[in-house]
């Protein structure tokens, strides 16, 4: 075999594993992490899974079980998960130069250059190193295509006989294992595709691999045809090493409590716009276009309202004051009294690199000076904590509409005042 070799490594129950890194007392007990706003379970330790807690179970439905079984519950702590994720990727890079960070807890590896090595052994070494260096348990899939590497990773996670590393390079291994994998577990096959495939009697990964690529394409678009080839061991997807240039930056949140007044709504929009401007500065881009939306809950009782409006800046900008200003003007046009608003968002599009900033024709703003101002504000907020310096329109830091995160663990690795304690008593 001379083709490419891909690996996929991902953190087991990643968020829960992050919570355990600094809490040895959480070893062996059920742990769950809740989504934004403490809504539903998004990560479950194996012990929590054994109690029957499902992905996406709403917190209020679990309350009794949580109490009875003493399940440890955490709000999402993205500062922690992001830092641990960065460490995991850095650890992988120490062994494999070509790493594609696919998501916060998954990375594709190009293992082609290690062909002559025992790759299962190398997979074990990778797992061992990530566990030692970062405290995160992982599983590894190895295969001639990304889709199969993902499938191998799934098998490594679900079936103990693989000891965390599943190698699908050999056609014999695939012939043996693919019939046992439900088709919905294949990367890129969602619920809608699964329903279509099942009507044709395509129930497993092996059935899908046996489908005519033409038929798969007409049924599931181009992606479908590609999946069939990939399942047969023919690589169609290369490793994506470059960070894609951002097409848009969106800051959208559900409120901790519904909003009834423009005062609260304007604070929410202003603070989302603030966050969007910060994100743009971090990525050194500016936006020419901005969209604001607000809506009521699609689930709650009562009258419903959903609307969006967009506008354009005179010149592309990432200046917080300008972004907040336009977002509020647009938001005011959307606002209607008499609704229980559940969510709002600010979406920046038509992004340009900062370096393409044009000299100002329209405004008398000294853009260089303003850019300097926001650099100072950003560095102050980096030192003193988010929103220490902010526009007054963004409202108080503890507004009731802000996300609920009542069970968030300390930001162990990113705050001086939240460092873990080493007991010497």
């Amino acid at each position: 075999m001379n083709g490419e070799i891909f690996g996929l490594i991902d953190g087991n129950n990643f968020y829960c594993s992050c919570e355990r890194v600094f809490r040895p007392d959480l070893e062996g007990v059920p742990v769950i992490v809740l989504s934004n706003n403490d809504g539903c379970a998004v990560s479950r330790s194996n012990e929590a899974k054994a109690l029957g807690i499902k992905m996406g179970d709403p917190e209020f439905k679990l309350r009794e079980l949580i109490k009875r079984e003493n399940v440890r519950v955490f709000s999402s702590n993205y500062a922690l998960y992001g830092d641990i994720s960065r460490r995991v990727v850095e650890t992988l890079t120490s062994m494999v130069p070509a790493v594609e960070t696919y998501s916060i807890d998954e990375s594709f590896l190009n293992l082609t250059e290690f062909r002559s090595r025992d790759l299962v052994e190398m997979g074990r070494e990778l797992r061992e190193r990530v566990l030692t260096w970062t405290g995160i348990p992982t599983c590894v899939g190895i295969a001639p295509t990304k889709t199969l590497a993902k499938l191998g990773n799934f098998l490594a996670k679900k079936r103990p006989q693989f000891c965390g590393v599943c190698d699908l390079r050999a056609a014999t291994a695939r012939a043996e294992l693919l019939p046992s994998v439900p088709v919905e577990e294949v990367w890129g096959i969602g619920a809608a595709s699964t329903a279509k495939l099942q009507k044709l009697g395509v129930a497993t990964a092996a059935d899908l691999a046996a489908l005519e690529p033409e038929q798969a394409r007409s049924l599931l678009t181009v992606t479908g045809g590609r999946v069939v080839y990939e399942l047969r061991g023919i690589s169609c997807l290369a490793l994506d090493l470059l960070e894609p240039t951002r097409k848009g930056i969106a800051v959208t949140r559900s409120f901790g409590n519904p909003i009834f007044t423009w005062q609260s709504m304007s604070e929410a929009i202003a603070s989302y716009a603030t966050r969007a401007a910060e994100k743009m500065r971090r990525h050194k881009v500016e936006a020419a276009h901005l969209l604001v939306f607000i809506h009521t809950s699609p689930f709650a009782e009562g009258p419903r309202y959903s609307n969006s409006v967009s506008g354009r800046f005179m010149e592309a900008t990432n200046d917080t004051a300008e972004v907040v200003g336009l977002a509020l003007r647009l938001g005011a046009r959307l606002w209607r009294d008499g609704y229980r608003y559940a969510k709002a968002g600010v979406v920046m599009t038509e992004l340009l690199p900062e370096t393409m900033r044009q000299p100002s024709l329209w405004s008398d703003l000294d853009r260089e000076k303003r850019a300097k101002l926001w650099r100072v504000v950003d560095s102050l907020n980096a030192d003193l904590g988010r929103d220490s310096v902010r526009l007054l329109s963004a409202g108080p830091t503890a507004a009731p509409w802000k996300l609920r995160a009542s069970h968030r663990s300390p930001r162990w690795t990113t705050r001086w005042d939240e460092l873990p304690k080493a007991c010497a008593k």
Partner: protein
Amino acid sequence: MRLQILERAADWPLVLPLFEGRIPAGFPSPAEDYAEVPLDLNEFLVQNKAATFLMRVDGDSMKDAGILDGDLLVVDRAAKPGSGSVVVVAVNGEYTVKRLRRTAEGVWLDPANARFQPMRVATDEELHIFGVVKHAIHTLR
């Protein structure tokens, strides 16, 4: 309009004059030719960035090892703990700082303060080491 290629831009040595900050009008600095990158404490404190974590000491059971209450610990998870290493280790579900000692009878976790007792750990399996303490940073207040 006809254009003729005279020379490829990529073939030029691209040297741009750098005028950063103020150019002293007087005599050029004699140190200029000896400019080096300033020292970075991270270089001294952190061998392995991915595996290094900071912790805060709570208590004085390690004071005779120069580790005082409130000190900042630089803990390396990649370093191999040997007999004599100061380690952060889980004891009763809590991370504590101790000195590791291996003897014929087993593994010991020693304090560095006469008021505290050494602890014996039966086997390596029961030893949950977080990492090896590489530096204790003490701030004078």
